[in-house]
């Protein structure tokens, strides 16, 4: 009787474990089956390196969007990583307990805010701010980078913080025993010891930034042309798909799915480097 029950439970576990694998597998099949033919019809070279995206003229070059995604993400990293890592250092090594109980939930909250809400915040606060004080029409690359920089903060802070906390205390004690101050031990012993975890947090942040869609669409301008500068609009890969999916047909529609394939490969590379980093840290 017990054995039967055990076997039954084992089946349920196995089935649950398989669901996610099956899901990934189905997504892969769907993406590649629809995307690859489009790519070959357009020509891989024309598709990936083409500078013009004009579906009405049958021009399907996604280089502008690839670069758009990369630039916006790089900007987000430039803004989010220093702030995030320093916050993680502060939380794990400097913060008084009382303040911690205030900051930590705030960060958790930041992580839970839906991206459309971030988008609204960007639209109502950041866009006018940039337009009035910095330049451009406000819906520009800089705005998207700042907004994404804020959105990846919780990821970077939480992952970095646990990496910093996981550094064995005997490193810290070793530093102090040599006459190093608390600050010096924190930045020159603990932080280097946590660096693979911190890099992992950055990689996760990149993944989040590159995949973000809604918030970016709301503030980035979305012009499908080669990125021209911080104060000009850009379109990312994700935005490209969402904006045109509703009315696209035939090759146009397939080209959008092929765009998703490119995005998927980006994420794949990011996840791969994440697990490589993790393996190294053990």
């Amino acid at each position, binding site marked *: 009787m017990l054995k039967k029950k055990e076997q039954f439970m084992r089946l349920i576990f196995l089935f649950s474990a398989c669901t996610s694998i099956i899901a990934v597998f189905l997504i892969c099949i769907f993406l590649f089956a629809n995307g690859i033919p489009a790519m070959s019809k357009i020509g891989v070279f024309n598709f990936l390196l083409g500078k013009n995206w004009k579906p009405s003229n049958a021009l399907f070059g996604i280089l502008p969007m690839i670069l758009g995604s990369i630039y916006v993400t790089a900007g987000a990293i430039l803004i989010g990583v220093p702030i995030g890592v320093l916050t993680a250092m502060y939380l794990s090594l400097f913060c008084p307990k009382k303040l911690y109980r205030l900051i930590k939930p705030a960060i958790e909250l930041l992580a839970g805010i839906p991206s459309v809400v971030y988008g609204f915040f960007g639209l109502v606060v950041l866009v006018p701010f940039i337009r009035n004080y910095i330049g451009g029409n406000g819906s520009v690359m800089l705005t998207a980078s700042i907004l994404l920089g804020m959105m990846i903060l919780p990821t970077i802070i939480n992952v970095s913080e646990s990496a910093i906390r996981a550094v*064995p205390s005997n490193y810290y004690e070793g530093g102090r*025993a*040599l*006459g*190093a101050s608390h600050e010096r031990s924190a930045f020159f*012993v603990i932080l*280097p010891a946590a660096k693979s975890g911190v890099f992992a947090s950055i990689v996760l942040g990149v993944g989040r930034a590159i995949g973000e869609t809604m918030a970016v669409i709301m503030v980035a301008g979305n012009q499908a042309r080669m990125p021209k500068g911080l104060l000009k609009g850009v379109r990312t890969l994700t935005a490209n798909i969402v904006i045109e999916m509703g009315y696209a047909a035939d090759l146009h529609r397939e080209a959008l799915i092929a765009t998703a394939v490119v995005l998927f490969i980006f994420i794949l590379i990011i996840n791969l480097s994440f697990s490589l980093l993790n393996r190294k840290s053990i």
Partner: protein
Amino acid sequence: MEKFKITDLDLYYGTFKALIKVNLTIEANQITAFIGPSGCGKSTLLKSLNRMNDLIEGCRIDGNVLLDGEDIYGNIDVNLLRKRVGMVFQKPNPFPMSIYDNVAYGPRTHGIHSKIKLDEIVETSLRNAAIWDELKDRLKKSALGISGGQQQRLCIARALAVQPEVLLMDEPTSALDPISTSKIEDLISELKERYTIIIVTHNMQQAVRISDKTAFFLLGQVIEYDTTENIFSNPRQKETEDYITGRFG
């Protein structure tokens, strides 16, 4: 010459009294061993000599510890105190960086940045720790990739690199094999010419082999403090005798 003079030292972890009225005088350029059963306060006393106990929340002391006549719990720079009184831990704890950077960490902390000077300090320290020949070809490699015994000698080199006057060692060989242990014992004996060394050990033979004086601890008190010879050949207290003959407990 006396290096440390400890008078009526009481130490509390919260409400728990871990050291009770400790009185000890540690001679310069000698090796002093602390022995006693587990939990009797050897590490606690050691840590109070370079104020590493400051890092422990709720730790409080009464009494006096003088280093060369100066009260180390008075108005002094703790980081400079720790530069003068170095420490080697029970578990080798090299930083996860290169061998070179490990040794250079202390000097850099204390303001030395010239490459020539650092190179020189790194080499002398590794030589003094009797590990230069083994490591000289891989100074840029990670310190975590060498054996436990080498790591411990690297930690000794790292401590020596800031030119301390005193070395505190908390069971420095308890995690090591016999060969590494004897290397480190030889090293300690050599170092005593230039440094004052205090070593905590659970190994009676080790205390006999290397130390000049021995303090026997029991439940937070120093029961007996004398030359190592006297402690091990004719102890005056019954507790000491029971402990060293293994009848304790």
